[in-house]
Structures are given as C-alpha cells and as structure tokens.
C-alpha cells in the first residue's frame, strides 16, 4: 500500500481535515451516513465513513483531546438497531439479514471499539452460527439463506467471522478448495463461481479470503 497523506497535505494544506469534515457533513440526525449530498443512507456508507475517518486518524476515539467531528454514539446506536433476532445485521433497522451488511456493521462496531462490549460472547456465538450457515456443501459461502455461493462472500462472511474470532467454525479446507476452483489457471483472475467469467472484483475478494484462511505465501490482511 502507498501512504499518500504527506503528498495530500503538501498539495492541499489541511487536506486530511477537509476530507474528514466532508465525511462528517454526511452524517444524518439519526446517526447514519449518506453516500453523497443527495442523501441516500445505508449502513455501507456509515462503515465507509468510519473506515475513511480511521485511516485519516480522525475518529473521535483517535483524537480524545479534540472536539469530535461526528456523533459516534448516534452512529453506533443506529448500527445496533440494524441487528436482527438471528444475530445478524440488515441494511437498515428491520431489514433482512445479509452478510455484506454484517461486514459493514461488525466492521463499524470494531472501528468504534464497541464490538466486544455490545455483542459479548453470546452475541458472537449467535452471529457466528448464522455466518457459519452461509457455507454450502460445495464449500463456498453465500450472502443469505437460499442464495447461491459466491467467491466474494469469502471476504464478507469470513472477515466478519475473523472479527468475532469464529473463523474456525467453518470448513476452511473446503472453502479454500472452492476459491481455488474459481481461478482461471491460464489467463489469471477469479470468477464468482466455477465456469463464470473472471473479474477484478472477485479476484480481489477471493484472494483476500485466502489470506484470512492463512493460505501459504499470502500477506495477512486486516479484517477491518
């Protein structure tokens, strides 16, 4: 990875703070974030906002002696309201559980430092069970019940399990085999499923999933 923050500050004085203030301006009264000035809200945007702020070092928890630029409590309260009875999370309060949303919500709680205090071991067990059920006989993972497996969920599901220390709850050998079966061994790249066309999206998340599985030779990826 390249650290370009020094270059940013050189070209745009106080650039980090300007970016952080733009992100903060997207926070809504109920705590969630909009994706842009037109106001579509989604827990994905909240997580992306958190992640960008954390990379900038501008989360309130990273600047305890400075006035907070976002309402962290309102944001985490919104995330908690997105949790369902099955232990997983949806795109908004009351919405169906989806492992992509689980990633954004668990990731946001992790960045806010509230994952352990909110879920506890019981909550992690319940969420871990739901995530484990995403693995189908082929070894691949799906995003929600009754859906097809897809290589990209090797990241969305597995990284969520890594954040709650439950990666060992799935058959890692079968998942590794599934991901490797999605490769094009001649021209490179990974597809969503064996037989489909490869693309960079699934190549990225397939290899990231293998990294979480500690595949030999790969650099270890940070789940959040």
């Amino acid at each position, binding site marked *: 990875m390249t650290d370009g923050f020094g270059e940013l500050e050189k070209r745009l004085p106080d650039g980090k703070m300007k970016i952080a203030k733009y992100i903060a301006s997207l926070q809504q009264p109920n705590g969630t974030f909009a994706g842009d000035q037109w106001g579509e809200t989604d827990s994905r945007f909240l997580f992306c906002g958190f992640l960008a702020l954390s990379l900038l070092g501008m989360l309130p928890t990273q600047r305890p002696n400075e006035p907070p630029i976002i309402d962290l409590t309102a944001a985490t309260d919104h995330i908690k309201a997105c949790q369902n009875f099955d232990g997983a999370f949806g795109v908004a309060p009351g919405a169906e559980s989806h492992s992509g949303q689980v990633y954004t919500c668990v990731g946001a709680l992790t960045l806010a430092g509230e994952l352990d205090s909110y879920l506890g071991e019981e909550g992690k067990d319940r969420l871990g069970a739901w995530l484990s059920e995403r693995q189908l006989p082929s070894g691949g993972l799906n995003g929600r019940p009754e859906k097809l497996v897809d290589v990209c969920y090797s990241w969305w599901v597995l990284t969520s399990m890594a954040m709650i220390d439950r990666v060992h709850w799935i058959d890692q050998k079968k998942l590794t085999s599934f991901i490797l079966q999605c490769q*094009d061994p001649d*021209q490179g790249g990974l597809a969503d499923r*064996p037989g489909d066309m*490869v*693309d*960079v999206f699934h190549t990225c998340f397939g290899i990231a999933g293998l990294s979480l599985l500690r595949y030999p*030779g790969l650099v270890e990826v940070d789940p959040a």
Partner: protein
Amino acid sequence: MSLAAGPGRGGGASAAQLPDELQLVVDKHVAYVQSLDTVRQYSFAMRLRRLTLTCSSAETNSNTISRNIFASAAYTGAWWPCIYSTIPRHYQEKDFSTLSSAAYMRMEDLARRLVMIHTCSIPARRSKYWL
C-alpha cells in the same frame, strides 16, 4: 458482476485436478490485474461512471431514472469487449456535460441497449441488439 469482466473463465483447473492438487496461480493473477491497467473496456467503464456522475448533478426526475440506467450499464461486466465496440466514437469522446436534451435522450437509449445486450445471456442472440 463487476466493472470489467473477462477475458478468462474460472474453473478450468478443477476438471483436471483434484481439490487437494489445486494451487493459487499467483503469477497469472498478477498478470491479469496488470492487464486491467490498459484494457479498453475498463477505460470505458470509467467513462460511463463519469457520465453517471454528470447526470446526477443535473438532478431532475428524468435524469434520476437515466442515472440508474447508466449505473446498471456501468456495473455490468460480462460483455464489455462487444459493448465497447458498439459505442460510436463520437460518444466515446464526448464531453457529456454539454449534451443537448436530444443528444442526451440518444445516450439514454444507448445505455438501455447496453443493458439489453448484457442481459441477453445467450451469445448468439446478442446480434439482435447490435447497435
């Protein structure tokens, strides 16, 4: 589905190898990702995304619909090589912010056709929607 798909197809190794024999073909994946820096279809996807942003800045109801169409087109992945070849050069290089209403409608129609091409899953039938 992604911004740019292909040219390869996953699964080639699985028929010839047992699961325990499968290995990550690192060099091939690196070469594939490096190739994305130059392929024309990726460049075109970026153009469509920029157009999507331009449309959204106009912010009218009809443009919101168009924005969704273009977003659909921009995120379709399976047939970029043939899709790109169907775009007239005039549109490939156009500064979309200066489009007249009539030209904009033509672009919208073009985007609709792109989606139709993509959603036609049988390759032989694609010619039906050729521009």
